[in-house]
Structure formats: structure tokens, C-alpha cells
């Protein structure tokens, strides 16, 4: 056990001990004089200074010196260091967490072997009392082994690990390791970060928060300059005028410092349809394309592939394509002289890309009630209502999830026929004209929360509209500036039925001539179709909500319907099967390739989704590990949370220095004693025998 001082400079305060001695020697000079009748005789007595320089009140002097001594000692904060006082801390032990990157970039060259060897070296080099934990990470962090001093177990755990298919994210891994160390009472705590430190591993603005006393050590793997080319991006475009044909544009990146010649192949539905050889300059991005691809009707499953290189995993890209993914829209008019009125809307809808749209324009006379299910959205533009059979078919269409929009105009009569009451919202009334030189404006349009679309229709001028009185179950989506309802929706059923109080051509307004017409038409289409802007391409590490994905696909109605009363079976790229219940349709994407979603009964492929690895993970652009660690430490300092260990350490430090408390307490007691004795001495000095004067 050793002894020391936290603030030894305060010991210089011991010089203050001279003060009470001096005071006790000379205090009589400062004391108040005792009143005495006459100094006649006292003044005759020979004065000798030494008579006065005698210390009086030895007890008081002792108390005061001791008091000062204790106060000085308390400020100097003596402490003991020894096993007993340090029971809370294990000074001899070191706890380390080895954090190993298992992203798929670790498959490049011998990165994975380097990482594993380093981890095993740490286990071999540890002292018996040291503990090591293992955290594996890619996009997520996983504890492979909690803190353990069992070297054999640790070796087995490390040997068992393999690199994965996901990208890299450093923050979660470091924080997971810090959480493991939070329960450690070792004096030395450290995190060993083993990674190839790609630039993409650090997300913008993400820095982990760890305890200040945790040592963070980076073991950056030596990046081999391996010849590696990656399919970094691809895009499918389908021309409107070419049925079942599409174009595929591909972007290739050469991540190595050497020029490469690679063969790029394209297979559709398992058949190689194109192949070409490409020269890839070092570090360059090369684009190429495949046009006029016409694999036939139905779903297309395509694979882009490159030849072998340093990393085989990023040499394949999977995609799906289907003409069915275009939303079929029908525009109905009265035909004849009014047939061209729908051309404005038709042209606007054809320009839609997300979703792609297939538009047809027909009069009621060219339609059969049974044909309505071929379209997802039906828009009636200023046409008279059809017969009862067709209206009943429209009702079925809406009940099944279809979208119906009726634009009122000259052809519309006041009031709906009884058969249409349940189908169409509002009750149309008389025509309202703004008058010469005047106009109405549409105050606002919100196509609903599902798509999040909101379009400002104020620039459009409306000259005439037909009165529309909303019913109890109707919702007004837009109004004219005179208060009249402009767009009304009937609530209920799976589908949607809307009525617009003016035309979709320039006869009653100039909406179709305004730039705002395009977003209005597209937003209305998405709303009517129930289109979900869910991603179509997935990467390993994503989680897919199967139902939302299915809803985003035109023609996936069967899956949606099936999900109402049955579970789904999913076949993974590796051939294993997953079963998803209706209420838990989360599908984690762990592999690259095609996932096939089936109805459990009856069996059959309904939806296919393609998953690829994150191409940025193949980018070997390095992250400056030292700079990154410096940023982590800088970010940690101001926001360091008080962990249990730091609190324990603080408490232990305080425990070892608690002598100062005893010293102060003793000083306080001495102060009381001193006050008592000093009071007595003063009384005796100033009132000797009760002098009256």
C-alpha cells in the first residue's frame, strides 16, 4: 500500500502553522486593554520585553495548529493506493473487443484471411486473465462472442466466421463493441477494429459515441490491388410505342489500377441473348446498352454477368421486367365529334414514367361490361352516362379496386340516375358560368395521403362548372374559389370513385392548357390506381414489405387477394423456402438473385423480385482510418456519457481520497473545541474576577 497526495502543492500551506505561534506570542499587544483605576504604580514598574514574549494558552495554540494542519492536509487530499481500496477495479486485466468486418469486400484477395489471422493472433497473445469478445459486422453488428478468457472457444468462434454479402457500416459495430465493454470493470478497455476501411463504410454524419476511456485501435487490412470490375448500375426503359420491347443500359466500373478486358453477357429467362467484350480503363466507368430486347409477354427475369476477376460476387446483376407493370388506363368519351376531347388527357398520361401507363381511348359504344376489368383506371370525360348494365359493371369495377373518374361537362345531366347513386359521389346540378371576362379558380387539390401528391391548380382558369353537392359519405378534395365543390370522392369499397365538376378538356376551363395539368393528371392517376411508389430494386440487407411491393406492381392483384386469407411462400435464390404470414410480411434480403413469392394454395409463381449486392461495397476507395478514429474521439469527448464503469471509477477514486473528509470533520470538531476554550480564555482575560469598570 502506498501513500500520496493529490494536490501536494497545498502542503506549502503548512507554513501557516507559524501564524498561531506568532499570534500566541504577541497577542497581548492586540488585546483590548483591561480598564484599571490608575496606572500610577504600574508605570513605575520596569518593563522587560521578554516577559511578554511568552506563549500563553498552550492548549489553544495546540488546537489551532492542529486545526490548520488538518485543513491543509484535507486540501492536499491524501490518498492510499492498495488492493483493498481498489477492489472495485481490476487493474491487472485487459478487456478487448475484436470487431471484424465481414462485408463482401472482405472476399477480395486475402482480406478475410488477414482479418482472421489478426484476430487469432490477438487471442494467442492474450494473458490468461485478459478477456476478449468478438463482434462481426457488415451493415449490422452481431455479437459472435461475449467477453471471455477462454482462448479455445474464441478461436473456434473466429474460425467459424465467414464473410457475408452485405455492405459495411462502422458506427453500429463500434457502438455494439462499446456496449459489451460497458459492463467491464477492467482497467484497460479497448476495441480492435479489423476492416478494409472502405470509404463507403462511414455514412455521412455518422460517428459512434463511446466512452472516453475506451481505447479504439484500427487494424487496417492491406488492400490488394486486385483486378475487379463491377456492374455498378443498370436501367431499363420501355418505349411506349413498342409492345413487349425494352432497352437495358449498363454501367461498368473498373476498380483496379490496371486495364481490363471483360465479357459482358445478358441472359433473359435463362437464355443468353447478348454478349459483348468491353475494354475497361483503370478506375474508369464504362457504359453500354442492349436495345430492342423482346423476350415475349409475361415476366422477364434477366441476369447481367461479367467474366471472372478478383471478386466474383459483384460480377452478376439480377433484374425483372414486365409489361404488366404498366398501368392500363381507359378514357371514355361519347365518340363522334366529341372523340378528340380526351386527347389532352391521353397525351398527359402517356408521359408518366412512375408508373408507366398504357392508355386507351374508347366511346361507351365500343365497350362491353365484361371488358372493364382489363383496365386499372377508367376516366369518363364529359360523356353521357351509359346504360344500367354498364353502370353495374362500373360498380363492380370500383368494388374490385379499380379507379373511376367522371368529369362533368355539357354532356352531363343534372342528377344521377338512381342506379348510379351508389357509385358516383355528389349530385350534379345546374351549370355555373363565371360570366364574360370572369373566371373561377380551383383553390387546392390534394390527391390524398397515400401518394402524398399535392398540386396547386390555382393557375388554371375555370369558366364554367356544374354544381356538385357532396353527399354524407363524400369527401371534397378540391373546391372552386366561390365555394363550389370541384372534386368529390365517394368513400367506401376497395376502389375509388371521383367526380370532377368541370371538363378535362379546354371547353369549360384552360386546365388542360396549363403546365400544371401534367402533374395533376399523373397525381390523379396514381391516386385512382392506388399506386405505391415502393422500390422495385433491392439490395442485400434490405427488408421488403412483400404486400407493399405487390401493390406497387400492376397485375399483382392475385397476390393481394391471396394475402387476405392465405399465407405466402417465398423461394429464396439459394432454393430454401420461407413462409410469410399475412400480418408479418417482412422479407429480409440476405442473398443476391431472384426471390419468388407464391400463394400457398393454389401454388404458382405470382411475384418475383430481384436482389443485388450493394455495388458500392466493391469500391476499394479507402477511408483514412487514423482520421476516422480521431473524429470518433473528438466526437466522443464532449458528449461522453457517464457509464457505470466511470461512475465506479470515480467512486473508487473518491474512496481512496476520502481521508480529506475525515480531516475536515476533525478540523470542524477542533474548531468547536477551540471556540470553547478561546471563549473561556477571553472571559478570563477581559473580566478577571468580574471587574466592574
Amino acid at each position, binding site marked *: 500500500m502506498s501513500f500520496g497526495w493529490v494536490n501536494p502543492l497545498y502542503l506549502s500551506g503548512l507554513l501557516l502553522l507559524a501564524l498561531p505561534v506568532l499570534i500566541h506570542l504577541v497577542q497581548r*499587544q492586540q488585546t483590548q486593554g483591561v*480598564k484599571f*483605576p490608575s496606572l500610577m504604580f*504600574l508605570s513605575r514598574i520596569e518593563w522587560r520585553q521578554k516577559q511578554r514574549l511568552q506563549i500563553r494558552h498552550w492548549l489553544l495554540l495546540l488546537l489551532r495548529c492542529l486545526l490548520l494542519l488538518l485543513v491543509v492536509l484535507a486540501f492536499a487530499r491524501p490518498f492510499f493506493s492498495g488492493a483493498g481500496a481498489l477492489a472495485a477495479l481490476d487493474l491487472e486485466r485487459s478487456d478487448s473487443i475484436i470487431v471484424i468486418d465481414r462485408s463482401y469486400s472482405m472476399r477480395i484477395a486475402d482480406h478475410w484471411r488477414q482479418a482472421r489471422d489478426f484476430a487469432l493472433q490477438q487471442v494467442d497473445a492474450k494473458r490468461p486473465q485478459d478477456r476478449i469478445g468478438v463482434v462481426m459486422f457488415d451493415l449490422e453488428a452481431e455479437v459472435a462472442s461475449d467477453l471471455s478468457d477462454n482462448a479455445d472457444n474464441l478461436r473456434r468462434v473466429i474460425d467459424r466466421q465467414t464473410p457475408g454479402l452485405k455492405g459495411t457500416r462502422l458506427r453500429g459495430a463500434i457502438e455494439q463493441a462499446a456496449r459489451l465493454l460497458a459492463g467491464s470493470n477492467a482497467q484497460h478497455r479497448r476495441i480492435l477494429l479489423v476492416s478494409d476501411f472502405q470509404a463507403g463504410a462511414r455514412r455521412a454524419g455518422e460517428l459512434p459515441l463511446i466512452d472516453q476511456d475506451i481505447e479504439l485501435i484500427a487494424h487496417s487490412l492491406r488492400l490488394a490491388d486486385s483486378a475487379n470490375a463491377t456492374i455498378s448500375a443498370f436501367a431499363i426503359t420501355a418505349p411506349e410505342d413498342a409492345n413487349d420491347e425494352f432497352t437495358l443500359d449498363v454501367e461498368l466500373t473498373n476498380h483496379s489500377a490496371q486495364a481490363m478486358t471483360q465479357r459482358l453477357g445478358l441472359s433473359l429467362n435463362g437464355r443468353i441473348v447478348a454478349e459483348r467484350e468491353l475494354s475497361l480503363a483503370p478506375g474508369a466507368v464504362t457504359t453500354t446498352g442492349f436495345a430492342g430486347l423482346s423476350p415475349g409477354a409475361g415476366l422477364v427475369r434477366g441476369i447481367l454477368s461479367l467474366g471472372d476477376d478478383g471478386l466474383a460476387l459483384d460480377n452478376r446483376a439480377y433484374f425483372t421486367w414486365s409489361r404488366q407493370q404498366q398501368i392500363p388506363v381507359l378514357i371514355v368519351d361519347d365518340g363522334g365529334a366529341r372523340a378528340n376531347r380526351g386527347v389532352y388527357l391521353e397525351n398527359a398520361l402517356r408521359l408518366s414514367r412512375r408508373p408507366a401507363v398504357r392508355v386507351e381511348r374508347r366511346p361507351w359504344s365500343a365497350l362491353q361490361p365484361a371488358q372493364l376489368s382489363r383496365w386499372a383506371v377508367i376516366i369518363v370525360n364529359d360523356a353521357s352516362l351509359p346504360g344500367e348494365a354498364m353502370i353495374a359493371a362500373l360498380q363492380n369495377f370500383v368494388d374490385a379496386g379499380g379507379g373511376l373518374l367522371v368529369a362533368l361537362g355539357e354532356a352531363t345531366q343534372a342528377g344521377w340516375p338512381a342506379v348510379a347513386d351508389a357509385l358516383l359521389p355528389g349530385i350534379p346540378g345546374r351549370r355555373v358560368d363565371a360570366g364574360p371576362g370572369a373566371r373561377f379558380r380551383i383553390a387546392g387539390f390534394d390527391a390524398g395521403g397515400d401518394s402524398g401528391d399535392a398540386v396547386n391548380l390555382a393557375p388554371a382558369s375555370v369558366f364554367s362548372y356544374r354544381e356538385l353537392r357532396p353527399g354524407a359519405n363524400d369527401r371534397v378534395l378540391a373546391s372552386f374559389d366561390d365555394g363550389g365543390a370541384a372534386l368529390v370522392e365517394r368513400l367506401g369499397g376497395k376502389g375509388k370513385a371521383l367526380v370532377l365538376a368541370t371538363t378535362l378538356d379546354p371547353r369549360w376551363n384552360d386546365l388542360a392548357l396549363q403546365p400544371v395539368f401534367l402533374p395533376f393528371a399523373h397525381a390523379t392517376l396514381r391516386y385512382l390506381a392506388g399506386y405505391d411508389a415502393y422500390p422495385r430494386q433491392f439490395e442485400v440487407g434490405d427488408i421488403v414489405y412483400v404486400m407493399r411491393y405487390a401493390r406497387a406492381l400492376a397485375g399483382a392483384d392475385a397476390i393481394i387477394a391471396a394475402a387476405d386469407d392465405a399465407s405466402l411462400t417465398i423461394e429464396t435464390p439459394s432454393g430454401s423456402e420461407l413462409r410469410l404470414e399475412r400480418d408479418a410480411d417482412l422479407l429480409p434480403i440476405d442473398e443476391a438473385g431472384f426471390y419468388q413469392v407464391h400463394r400457398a394454395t393454389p401454388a404458382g409463381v405470382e411475384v418475383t423480385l430481384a436482389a443485388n449486392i450493394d455495388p458500392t461495397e466493391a469500391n476499394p476507395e479507402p477511408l483514412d482510418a487514423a482520421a476516422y478514429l480521431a473524429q470518433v474521439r473528438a466526437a466522443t469527448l464532449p458528449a461522453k456519457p457517464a457509464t457505470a464503469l466511470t461512475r465506479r471509477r470515480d467512486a473508487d477514486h473518491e474512496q481512496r481520497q476520502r481521508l480529506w473528509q475525515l480531516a475536515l470533520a476533525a478540523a470542524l470538531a477542533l474548531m468547536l473545541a477551540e471556540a470553547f476554550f478561546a471563549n473561556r480564555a477571553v472571559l478570563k482575560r*477581559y473580566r478577571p*474576577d468580574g*471587574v*466592574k*469598570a
Partner: protein
Amino acid sequence: MAARAHSQGQMAGQRFIDPSVLARIDNLELIARNVVDGFISGLHQSPMLGMSVDFAEHRAYMPGDDVRRIDWRLFARTDRLYVKEFEADTNANLHLLLDVSRSMDFGSGAATKLEYAKFLGASLAYLSMRQRDRIGLITFDADIVEVIPPSIRHFETVLHALDRLEAGGAGDYLKPLQRIGESLRRRSLVVLISDLYAPPDELLKAIDQLRLRGNDLIVFHLLDPLELNLELGDAGSVEDLESGSRMPIAAREFQGEYRRLIQAHQAELQRRLGASQVDYIFTDTSQPLDDVLYRYLADRARQKGGRR
């Protein structure tokens, strides 16, 4: 304490004679009566000395004299006012000269020197009243403060004056005693009560102003016990009550020398006053009054005897 034991062993009523008891009584007349009556009841001999009704002399009328005692016959002859004095009336005037300088306002016990002097003065006044003596009071510090001319009826006036006495400023002896001596019209018994803080030469010179005019003098030298032994503990300095000047001391170391000086002062005063036929009675304020009164009466008897 020794003095108290002495008084307790000799007389009844002693409990009223202890200064510490008297200090708690707020009525000087009561104090005087108790002290004197208690004291006298213990004497075997009456203190009424030299009482007589024989005519003694005429003297000039003074304001305050009883007009019934004017000798009208003599007035008719001389056209001046004289009063008759008989032997019984010729008991000496008692002049109480009380030092009220600041130094008297000091005491380490129940009573200060001034309070002790008040008790003593009141007792002497009462005793004199019983003897039909005329009683007067003169207080002084550096000068005369208050004068009550002697009269047989001035007992209560004197007591009242004593009762409201307060200590004054710095003290002196020569000037006030000289003026007092000049004001005394006839031989009187002059009782000086003081702490006598002055060099013996100066004191004797002042006292001679009274003595040489034919007055009989008794000097009461009052000191507090603390003034005798300097028991000031660890006091580092003392402050003069009268002048306010301070001086550092080492009380314990000074005690021996101080006692020697004060005792020498007493001895010197006793010797020189005795040589001048002046009675010197020293007392400290812890002593019972009876002892002081006894010594006073003894001196008084001696003076009466001497005068006859």
C-alpha cells in the same frame, strides 16, 4: 473573607454589613440604619459622647440656621443676627468629602469603590445624626462637584445626594481640598473618602489645607482587592480609567513589584498622616463596614477626648 468572619464573630446584624449584601439594597437610609443600629447594638458603650445643654457661644447667623435660635437680645444690642449654640450643639460638624473621580468607579466584587464609599458615607451620616452632629457633604474630582452645607437636618439631603452620585472625570486633590478648606467656617470633623491615587507629598499638601485650619481629619483610603494584588490574569495591557491612556503589562510578572509599591504607598501615607495628627483608615472594599465604623468611632472618641 477573613474580615467577614471577624464581623460575624463579633456582632449581630452582620448580614447587613457585608458590602456584597449592601450592594443589593437600593435604599441608602435603610443601609445606614441597619449598619449603624446593628453595629451599635453590639457595643457595650454608648456612642453618644459629650452630650450637654450648656451654653457655649454665639455665632453669626447663616442662611439655613433655625430662626428660632436667633438671639434676639443680642440682635437688639448689636443689630446683628447671632444664633446661640449650646454645648450639646457644639458637636463638630461632620463634613463628608467624597472623591467621585473616575478611578472610584471600579470594583472587582459586588460593589465598586464609589458604591462602598456611598455606604460608608451614609452610615457615617446616620451615626452622626444620632449624635446630633451636623452633617454636610462635599463631592469632588478635579474640582468641587457638589456641596451640601452641614446641618442637623441635612441627613436626608445628604443621603439623597449620595444616592445619585456618579463618578466624574479625572481626579485631583490640591485644588478641591484647598477650596474646601477655605469654605469651612468653623472647625469641623472632616472625613475624606478616596482611593488616594496621588503621590504622598501632593496628598499631604492638599490635606494640610484642611488640617491647618483646625479641622479634625479622618482619611478613609479605599481600594479594591484587585488594586491590591493585580490579579489581572493574562491581560496584555491596561487602560487608565481616568486618562484613557494604555500601557502594555505582563500582569503575572508585575504582581510582586506592584504589591510592593502599593504597600509602600499605604505605609508612607499612614506614617506621614499619623505624623500630622490625621487619622488614616485603610480598607479594601471586600471588608465589612462594621470594622471600618469601629475604627472610625475609636478615632472619634479619641478626638473628643483630645478636644476636652
